[in-house]
């Protein structure tokens, strides 16, 4: 388990309602292919995305990449029901705030594993934190289910309205990354996140900024991060790969 987790540097997000786009990941060779039911899927395509998932999981899990599914917290139950299939490694849950919701999710996954012929207890959970409440509760969240294998820093510059701040860093960002790292090391989870700076986040981050964000996070002890665009996969892989020569 630990060996395979160490190789999860790039988590490439693939909109699950577009099978043709979901095929594109092969050329980019992400360590993890994240089939998305959340942000990249518009409301009108949610149903189609869920229906699509069983085929996508089958196809993607035959590749080099490990398969995860990102669910929407607003429609978590329906999304998780659509996601659990053999070959699917785990669920990415963004925005969790209370240990209770993670424990409930754990129960639901357990029931679905049994029904769908997945080895009980093997479906993992990657928690991506997006709110002050979530970061405050980071330890109880991580302890709420033995399925949790990763703790990540989400798009908090937007969700927590951090602004652009001084000295080239989002205010609080360094603290929240460090807080995540400490919890992750203490509980032996993989810390996920990149040290993005103001003006270079999300879909607009250049390759250079993405590499720098990944490398800086890697030097801080992080193991990987989500990639919003395909172009971010290569710089993320490179940034999180330890180099022979220290920078």
């Amino acid at each position, binding site marked *: 388990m630990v060996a395979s987790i160490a190789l999860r540097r790039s988590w490439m997000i693939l909109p699950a309602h577009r099978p043709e786009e979901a095929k594109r990941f092969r050329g980019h060779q992400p360590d993890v292919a994240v089939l998305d039911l959340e*942000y990249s899927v518009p409301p009108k395509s949610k149903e189609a995305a869920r229906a699509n998932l069983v085929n996508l999981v089958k196809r993607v899990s035959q590749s080099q990449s490990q398969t995860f599914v990102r669910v929407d917290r607003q429609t978590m139950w329906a999304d998780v029901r659509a996601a659990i299939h053999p070959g699917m490694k785990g669920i990415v849950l963004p925005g969790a705030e209370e240990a209770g919701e993670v424990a409930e999710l754990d129960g639901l996954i357990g029931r679905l594993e049994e029904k769908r012929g997945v080895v009980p207890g093997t479906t993992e959970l990657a928690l991506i934190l997006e709110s002050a409440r979530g970061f405050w509760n980071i330890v109880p969240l991580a302890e709420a289910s033995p399925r949790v294998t990763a703790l990540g820093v989400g*798009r908090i510059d937007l969700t927590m309205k951090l602004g652009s701040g001084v000295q080239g860093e989002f205010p609080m960002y360094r603290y929240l990354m460090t807080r995540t790292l400490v919890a992750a090391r203490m509980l032996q989870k993989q810390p996920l996140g990149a040290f993005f700076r103001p003006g270079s986040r999300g879909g607009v981050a250049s390759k250079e900024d993405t590499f720098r964000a990944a490398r800086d996070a890697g030097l801080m002890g992080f193991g990987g991060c989500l990639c919003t665009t395909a172009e971010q996969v290569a710089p993320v892989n490179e940034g999180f790969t330890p180099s022979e020569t220290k920078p």
Partner: protein
Amino acid sequence: MNSKVCRCWMFVPANNPRFIERAWTRGADAYLLDLEDSVPEAEKEKARHLVREIISKVAKGGASVYLRVNKPYVEADLRAAVWPGIERVVLPKVESGEELRHASDLLTELEKERGIPVGSIEITPFIESALGVANIYEIVTSTPRIRTMGGGTGYDMALDLEVEMFATSNPYAYPEAACALAEMAVGVEAVGGVFVPNVSGRVDQGGVAMAAALHGTYVRETGVLHPALIQPLIDGLTPTVGEMRWARRVLDVWEELQQQGEAMDVVDGKVVDKYEYDWAKDLLQWADACAAKDRCKKRAIARVQAETPKEE
């Protein structure tokens, strides 16, 4: 969001008539009548009994009035100085929830006794020690009177931590962020105490630098000692015309996206999505609240001018 806009409040020592008479002309959103660090020990007793008279003087320009008390004399200060017109009590150097529950009970008693709606006076605790940072969650959840809170930075914090407050690296990075995180986790607004280097030698430039650092962040309230800092901070914490224009555009685009069942679009090279929609809605609410506060101050000042006989 805290509905009471206070982009900048200024400290006014409660024992100094010279400052008090002119304070209302300074343009702050609120004045904090101070009984603590700016009042010498020998003047404390006199100062706390002056507050009742001062409230209406500093409120003349439409500003709110706050009161800062001394940690060792909380009871004496509150009993002497809490009268109608005091909207908030600032408690410095808070280290436990117990202190806050005690102050809150006392306020309830005084509110009942003095015809003030019960529960209406807010408490703004300030964290200025390591112990306070360690107990932050217990403190911030101790009473519903807390809507705003400050701390983790400042002179006393530096003394308690025995750090150099003007070091090149930010010595408050951890305590400030730890306090802010707990505050945000329970929906309490952070009062900013950002320290930015000001090498210009001009006080107002310090305000401009502070405002630039805080603009667009989760911090929408600051406190200052010098009147030259007030206007730069009020301007800097108010949304700009350009931001408001873009925010309205985001709302329009989002409306269209909703109707089409889409979740994201790129407009003028900028992403419009649920995150940007939340940002835009919040920014416009804040802009409206700022404009309302400015109108209220303007009307109050016009009223005072109309009542003042011209010196001719």
